[in-house]
Structures are given as structure tokens and as C-alpha cells.
């Protein structure tokens, strides 16, 4: 009853508002993805007692601009024996799916553009670009589809390291995707919905209502699977430099290579948002403080990924498969069973 009144109170979402929201997401998240590379370099440097980028701008802040100029002006090399069309399309798949996945997660607070603006005045810009009732399913599906990027890139570039990277993509995808789905199934059963808004409202009562207290195992499993999903370090098999040069990205240069990275960092942000909304209370619709807290949570998860990268070694592909199929999946299934019994009783 309360939810329906809440929905009725919200202003009408127009297509113009959605377009503006999409532009905002594209602009800010790609900028954040660039900024993420800076943060990653800085945090890794500090953890290794280095300074990191220091010379371009104050504290190296303009390093992103320097990197961007470098990536944009670099020659776009397409190898002779590569399948040229697929080679050119593959990075776009990664970047595009990462941003499509962001379309149905709550990214920034909703607001109404003030009426003195010429054309777009009085337009309501929603928090979620497209508030699907199967949001979680859509996001996970899109992020899974994003794996086509590395897969096709590795297979199209006529390079042995690329082929190995592509094979590892398939291995990794088959391993973690089961765990992702099963681990997030338990909170979905608790809430009884696939919509992020419902997850947010389920946990709106404060820290005590967070799902992480009810589903700690699912939370850890989802984090592990999320690290695999975003190719972060313990599961950084696709482009493990020490073993396979750069894996699927070996032959890429310039902006095509940059698109892989924008996609990867956008995926990191997406996974952080999902983890924050599903397990750590999400955002509070009523106040700006709620949006501040979710940004802090997302920043924490982002930092956690960098922290883990600085701390832990890579694992081998067979170890990843062993971990996902023999350890995490049984735990996830048992967790679902226990949750189901608890809900029934």
C-alpha cells in the first residue's frame, strides 16, 4: 500500500528525462572510470610505499588528461591476420554493455531541472534511467554479455596470447556466473523482488535492516564472484601480464584498448553499486544523506578492489574453477536451502 502511494507521488518520467539521465551517466561514469585509473595507481603506489603519478598537475591529478590525450592520438593498429570487423567491434561491446548495465541501477539522486532552463526546464530526471522490475537480472545479464568483448577480441586478433586470454574468458565466465546467480538468489528470495527499488525499501529501516546481516555468506560469495566478473586481481586471468602478456588485449592499442578499460572500470562501479544496494542498505530516497552514504559504500567497494589487488596474488585458472565449482557453488546452494527453510518456517 505504502509503495503505491510513493510511486504516485513521484513526478512523471518522460523520455526526455531518461535521455538526460543517460547522458549524465555516460559523461560522469566515463569520467569516473578515467579517475578510477588515477585512484588505482595512487592507492597501489601508496600501498607499495611509492608516490604514484606526481608530475602532471597537482599531485598528478591531470594524469588522466595526459593518458586520454595519449590514448586518443595513438595509432589504431589492426593486425594483418585479424578478423578486422570483430576486432574493431569487440571493445565497443565491452564498453557498451558496461554502460547498458548501468542504465538500470540507481546511480545518482533524482532531481527536477529548474524551470528557467530553456528547453529542458521542469523535466524530472529519475534516479534509475530505466526502472525495470527485473533490474538485477538485467544488470547481471548485461555484465555477462559484456564478456563477449574479451572473448571475441581474443579470438579475432590472430595472436596466441589473445587466444589463451579468450579461452580463459570462457573458463572464468563459466565458473563465476553460477556463483553470482546463486549467491544473489538468497537475498532475492528474502525480498521477493528483482527490482533495486524494492531492495532499497526492504532495507530502509537503518543499519539493522541491511541484508548483509541476514545473508553474510551470500554477501561474501557475491563479492568473490563480483571480483571474477570484473576481472579484478585475484581472478585477473584474462590479461595476466606475467603469464600471457596482456591476454585478450595484447594486440590492442590506442582508444580501442582504452575502451576495454573504461568498460572494466564501469563494471567495477556497477558491481560496487549492486553490492551496496543489495547488501548494504542502498540509498535512502528521502534525503541527500542517503545518496552520500551510498557513494561512500560504492567508494569503499572500489577501494576494496584496489586494496585486494595490492595484497593478494593471482590464482591459476584451474584454481578458479576449483574454487567456483567445488567450493563456492555448494556453499551457495546450501545457503539458498537454509534461507528457503528459514523463510518457510
Amino acid at each position, binding site marked *: 500500500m505504502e509503495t503505491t502511494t510513493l510511486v504516485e507521488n513521484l513526478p512523471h518520467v518522460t523520455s526526455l528525462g531518461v535521455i538526460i539521465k543517460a547522458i549524465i551517466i555516460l559523461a560522469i561514469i566515463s569520467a569516473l572510470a578515467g579517475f578510477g585509473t588515477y585512484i588505482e595507481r595512487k592507492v597501489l603506489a601508496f600501498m607499495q610505499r611509492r*608516490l604514484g603519478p606526481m608530475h602532471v598537475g597537482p599531485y598528478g591529478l591531470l594524469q588522466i588528461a595526459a593518458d586520454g590525450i595519449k590514448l586518443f592520438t595513438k595509432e589504431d593498429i589492426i593486425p594483418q591476420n585479424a578478423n578486422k570487423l570483430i576486432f574493431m567491434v569487440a571493445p565497443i561491446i565491452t564498453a557498451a554493455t558496461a554502460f547498458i548495465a548501468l542504465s538500470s541501477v540507481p546511480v545518482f539522486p533524482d532531481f527536477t531541472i529548474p524551470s528557467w532552463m530553456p528547453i529542458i526546464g521542469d523535466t524530472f530526471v529519475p534516479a534509475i534511467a530505466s526502472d525495470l522490475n527485473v533490474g538485477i537480472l538485467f544488470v547481471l545479464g548485461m555484465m555477462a554479455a559484456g564478456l563477449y568483448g574479451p572473448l571475441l577480441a581474443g579470438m579475432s586478433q590472430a595472436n596466441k596470447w589473445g587466444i589463451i586470454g579468450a579461452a580463459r574468458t570462457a573458463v572464468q565466465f563459466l565458473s563465476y556466473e553460477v556463483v553470482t546467480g546463486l549467491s544473489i538468489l538468497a537475498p532475492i528470495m528474502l525480498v521477493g523482488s528483482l527490482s533495486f527499488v524494492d531492495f532499497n525499501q526492504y532495507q530502509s529501516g537503518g543499519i539493522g535492516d541491511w541484508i548483509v546481516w541476514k545473508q553474510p555468506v551470500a554477501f561474501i560469495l557475491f563479492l568473490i564472484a563480483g571480483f571474477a566478473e570484473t576481472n579484478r586481481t585475484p581472478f585477473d586471468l584474462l590479461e595476466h601480464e606475467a603469464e600471457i602478456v596482456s591476454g585478450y588485449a595484447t594486440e590492442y592499442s590506442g582508444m580501442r584498448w582504452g575502451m576495454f578499460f573504461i568498460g572494466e572500470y564501469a563494471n567495477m562501479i556497477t558491481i560496487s553499486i549492486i553490492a551496496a544496494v543489495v547488501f548494504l542498505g542502498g540509498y535512502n530516497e528521502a534525503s541527500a544523506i542517503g545518496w552520500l552514504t551510498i557513494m561512500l559504500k560504492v567508494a569503499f567497494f572500489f577501494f576494496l578492489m584496489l586494496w585486494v589487488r595490492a595484497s593478494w596474488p593471482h590464482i591459476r585458472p584451474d584454481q578458479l574453477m576449483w574454487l567456483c565449482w567445488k567450493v563456492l557453488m555448494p556453499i551457495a546452494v546450501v545457503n539458498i536451502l537454509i534461507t528457503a527453510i528459514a523463510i518457510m518456517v
Partner: protein
Amino acid sequence: MSLEQFKNRNVGTQRYTMLDLGKDPQTPWCKVRQVIRRTFKGDLLVGLWVTMREMFNALFRGNMATLKYPYEKLPISPRYRAIHDMLRLLESGHYRCIGCGLCEKICISNCITMDTRYDENQRKEVSEYTINFGRCIFCGYCAEVCPELAIVHGARYENASEQRASFSLFEDMLTPIDKLNLQKEYPGFGAVSPDADENIKQTPLAY
């Protein structure tokens, strides 16, 4: 340790200490126990703690390892062997080199070129002295052999220049006359050690 012992590479006959890695799991149940033990032992958290501790030490306790090189430099040892310095006599300001030619003689890469002549007081003066730093291997023999401590190795290790001749002339290496008060008595390569007096023994005259 004798040579024979040193050459014995048969592992097991020597006193090697094995690391305590524990036993490999034999049965499946042992493997499960190992997995559970490793999962809950918290070694992963120890790793996270180490990096976090290092970050705090680096950021807030000045434990950063990076040196911003062109702006900051590490102090180098007085025995460091970089570009040579030619020292002056502190009293008169005249250069110490007496033109004996020992450095030219001993230089194993033949990079020192010198020429001398008699000046109007019938004293030897150095008319020409160059060191070819393209060939110098900075062995320090010239500083060691110099009887007057006139040629020493300085601390100038940034050797990039547009011309090789930029610091290879006698005048370039000589202490500027207006900075004579800043000239330090050389403690490094070729100098007598501070405890030289204690180490001097009487030369036995008869065996």
C-alpha cells in the same frame, strides 16, 4: 670452509634446514580440513592488513620510499667515485698538482692526458690536463696514486652534458678560487684514513 666442502653440492649431506611447511594432505578428508583451516585462519586478512599498514606508514609516518630525484637527492658516500675534482692549496690558492704525471701513468684506460712545462720561476706548471670521461672507468687509481691529494673523486655524478669537454678540462675540475674556503679536505678515495696513525707500523729494517 675448505674448497672441497665448498664444492660439495650434494643436497642432504650438508646441514640444510627445511622450512616448516607442514605435511601435504594425503586423504580427501585431510584436503577438506586444509581448505577449512586456510579459509578461517585469516591469512588473507593478514595480507590486507600488511598493505594497509604500509599505506598508513607511507602516508602519515614519512615512510615513503620514493625520492623525487631531481628535487631530492640521496647523500652519497665520501668514497663515491664520480667526476674528479682538482684541489687547491688552502694557504696560497695555487693548485696542488705538481705535474708529476703519476696519474697519467697509472690510468688503466689511458684517459688522462697531461702536459707540463717550467714556468718563469722554474717550477713545473700544468699546461694541459684533460680527462676523457668517455673512457674513464672511475677506478680511482689516479686519486690513489696522487702524492699531493691534488686529484680526487668528487660527488658530481650527474654527467649529462651537451659536450663531452664540458667538465673534462683542468679548469673545470679545479676548485674555483672564490670558493676556496668551501673546499673540503677530501675524506674519500685515495685519502689517508682517519685512523692512519694507529695503523702505521715501523718498517722492519732487518729480516
